[in-house]
């Protein structure tokens, strides 16, 4: 029989060994990251051409895809996700390209020109390049423009048969005519639509006709075509630089160069493989292990630090047209009062929120002062600072309340309205998985407590309360684009994105005008007139532009951050393996 001492010694030895293994396996912490890795530092000043260089033939690029693919038909509302659109950028030709600096330029591979030939009625002449063809050799023509118009206008195919993500712009087209064997396309609108450059991502009408059974525009033809594209297991067509070679459901999508690609820059990569990784926290390990080469995950301080420590990897954080904001629900009994809203927004300290959320990994983060334009855009004016909102000025907030008849109760802890009723608790809703929003909510809670307003933090699994209106205060982000006429729906009375039920007839008028201005300067004037009124009404408080992240293995060149909704795939044909070692 063994002695007790020996047994104890054995146990201690095993415990010590296990602890040593555990301590040896622990990770060391890294230093604070910058906004861009050293080799990509020029991306801040030159977002459109940083990481440029000659490529050599060959190579496979492995890119993350954070969403499952439900359908390749990204015009469909349920399939209209950023990740799917990124992959389809390699197949779908569009007349215009949105570059990293938000500028919109003609896609000169596809188009000779696109000219606004008449302002009223609005008429645009598109000239398609003679050599622009689909991968089966069929020319890209006016027929493809007509198909895009017909299935997305909400009239020729109803929402039950064609539940598209958007009809705006297509719904006011009155006719399309063609000449020059379909290579010249004249599009006429019944109303002015200033964002015409955003339209006409093209699907092959020839394939649509096959899906429709021969006559695309016969009754039910468009519905059959829509269903055909929706049910494609893997598109066999392409009108852009790449074509799909393989798709393994929920695993990966492989693109290879389109042999019939007509553009000036021929793809040099052998393959681009999009790997589906649903948990973005796994992407840094995958990058480190060489299982992916590109990630565009949502950044946080830990993730950026981890990527910054990786050898042979560059990264960049850029501010784009996606912006974080706090919205108030004007259906709330207390928030219906403008003075209370103004006081709340005045007490919120945006600089403090930024300092404790994004600033540690995004040094140029700053308060955003416009609801439509981003810094750097020609229409950007500061409409928030003059109102004093977002300054964290508790004294001024109290003055606003006192002037409106609000008082603190006997305990001094609760705010009472002019009738003497205690202002009720306000729920502050935020998505529970977003730590930055949780921190922002906690800061707002502390800031408003100084006014005697009790804020109840309400973490939510998602943003569905926007639709149901079951919120008092909420923080979320708008994904912006350079195409602004659609912003009318965010702020105008009963607009589809006006979740807080804001209504101001003068603002409605200004927005309606801005949405039909073809002159950019006039549009900015009208949007800003509306914006100043909306800022004074204290409905939505802009916080900051959300940083958009990309990390890429150094062996690849010509791929860069594009913080707009176009994403890095805007120049997919240029991506390649670096010709010279870095």
């Amino acid at each position, binding site marked *: 029989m063994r002695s007790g001492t020996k047994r104890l010694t054995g*146990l201690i030895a095993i415990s010590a060994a296990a602890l040593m293994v555990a301590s040896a396996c622990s990770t060391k912490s890294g230093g604070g990251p910058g906004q861009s890795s050293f080799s990509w530092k020029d991306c801040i000043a030159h977002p459109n051409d940083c990481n440029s260089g000659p490529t050599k033939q060959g190579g496979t690029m492995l890119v993350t895809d954070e969403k499952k693919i439900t359908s390749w038909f990204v015009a469909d509302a349920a399939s209209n996700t950023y990740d799917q659109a990124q992959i389809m950028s390699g197949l779908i030709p569009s007349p215009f390209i949105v570059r990293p600096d938000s500028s919109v330029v003609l896609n000169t591979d596809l188009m000779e020109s696109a000219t606004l030939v008449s302002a009223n009625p609005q008429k645009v002449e598109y000239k398609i390049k003679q050599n622009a063809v689909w991968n089966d050799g069929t020319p890209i023509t006016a027929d493809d423009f007509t198909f895009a118009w017909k299935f997305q206008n909400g009239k020729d195919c109803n929402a039950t048969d064609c539940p598209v993500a958007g009809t705006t712009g297509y719904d006011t087209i009155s006719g399309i005519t063609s000449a020059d064997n379909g290579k010249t396309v004249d599009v006429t609108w019944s109303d002015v639509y200033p964002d015409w450059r955003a339209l006409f991502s093209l699907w092959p009408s020839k394939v649509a006709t096959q899906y429709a059974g021969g006559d695309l525009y016969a009754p039910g033809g468009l519905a059959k075509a829509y269903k055909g594209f929706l049910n494609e297991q893997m598109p066999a067509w392409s009108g852009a630089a790449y074509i799909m070679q393989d798709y393994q459901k929920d695993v990966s999508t492989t693109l290879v160069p389109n042999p019939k690609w007509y553009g000036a820059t021929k793809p040099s990569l052998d393959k681009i493989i999009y790997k589906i990784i649903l948990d973005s926290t796994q992407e840094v390990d995958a990058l480190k292990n060489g*299982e992916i080469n590109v990630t565009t995950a949502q950044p946080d301080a830990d993730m950026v630090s981890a990527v910054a420590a990786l050898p042979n990897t560059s990264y960049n954080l850029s501010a784009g047209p996606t912006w974080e904001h706090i919205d108030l629900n004007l259906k709330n009994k207390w928030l219906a009062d403008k003075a209370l809203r103004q006081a709340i927004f005045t007490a919120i300290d945006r600089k403090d929120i930024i300092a404790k959320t994004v600033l540690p990994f995004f040094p140029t983060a700053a308060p955003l002062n416009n609801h439509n334009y981003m810094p750097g855009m020609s229409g950007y004016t500061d409409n928030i600072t003059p109102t004093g909102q977002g300054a964290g000025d508790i004294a001024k907030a109290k003055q606003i309340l006192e002037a409106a008849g609000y008082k603190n109760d006997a305990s001094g802890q609760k705010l009472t309205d002019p009738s003497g009723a205690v202002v009720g608790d306000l729920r502050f809703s935020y998505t529970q998985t977003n730590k930055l929003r949780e921190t922002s909510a906690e800061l707002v809670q502390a800031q408003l407590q100084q006014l005697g307003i009790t804020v109840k933090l309400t973490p939510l*699994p998602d943003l569905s309360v926007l639709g149901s209106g079951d919120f008092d205060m909420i923080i979320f982000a708008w994904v912006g684009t350079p195409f602004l006429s659609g912003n009318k729906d965010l702020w105008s009375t009963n607009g589809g994105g006006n979740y807080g039920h804001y209504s101001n007839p003068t603002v409605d008028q200004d927005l309606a005008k801005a949405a039909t201005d073809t002159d950019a300067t006039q549009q900015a004037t009208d949007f800003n007139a509306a914006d100043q009124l909306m800022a004074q009404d204290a409905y939505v408080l802009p916080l900051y532009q959300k940083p958009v992240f990309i990390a890429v293995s150094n062996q690849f060149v010509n791929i860069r951050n594009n913080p707009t909704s176009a994403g890095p795939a805007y120049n997919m044909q240029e991506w390649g393996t670096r010709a010279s070692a870095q």
Partner: protein
Amino acid sequence: MIVFTVRRLFQAIPILLGAALIVYWLMSIPPDPVLKQFAGHNPPIPPATILANRQRMHLLDGFWYGFGRWVADFVRGDFGPTLGGGTDNIRKDLITHLGVTTHLVVPALFLAVVLAVITGVMSAIKQYSFRDYTFTFFGFLFLAMPTFWIAQLLKDTAVNFNLATGTHFFGTLGDRSIPQPEGFGPQMVDYIGHIVLPTISLALITYAGLSRFQRASMLEVINSDYVRLARAKGITPRRLLIRHMLRTALIPMTTATALTVAVFFGGTVITETIFNWQGLGTYTVGAIVGGDKYIVLAVLMLTGFFVIVGNLIADILYAVLDPRIRYE
């Protein structure tokens, strides 16, 4: 035995229906999944499109009509629409995800059960020995380790091993590299490099519980009268262990293993997430989070079926392992 089996299977139908009704009710509680899916889009999704998608998802049906429709469709093999639509097909997708999970679960379960039986028996035979303490220590250590932690630790270690050796032996995404290497040999090496980490992380935690179970069960048998009698009759230790003690001690282990199989098929979500395996766990959690109720219902039917069949197999094995048990 056949009558018993058929009777048990028929008894399962009302249980599954009751479970489905509860899940259908839970998944019908607001928020509306279509509103959730399209909330915050800029530009906003057209109201007509939202309505069309709500109709497609049968969200405008009344509760009982909707449930009745689902049952009728399910019996006919139509498992219902998904929020994603398009190429989604719940029946096909379920089979695919089940295949992935099976791929992960079978080797992990095999490893866990074999290790648990061996160490449990060895511990029990030499109770309170250094060997027993060692197995006990590691058993409790693995039992105390959260799955997400051990899986992440294994993954980090493997990635660092790859970096240090300049190889790509260990894979951390899915069950194979993409693109896959060419040739049978390299593909097998690639497969092993991908399966070893999730198998170990899943097996270790399962092994820990099962080994304690096996040890307790074996100790009970060792101290029973019939074993004492067998020893007195002079049966060789080897024959006593294998024919008399182990056979009896495996009966409770059979129940535990059968239940573990059922739990595995519904609950490997953490391992699947960390190693990016698109199995049943991630499929289910994604559906619950998104409010895809027909996927959740289909998974419930499948896992319910596994639980029932697993328990049925356990009951049948009782009779095989213990001649005293007979089913009428």
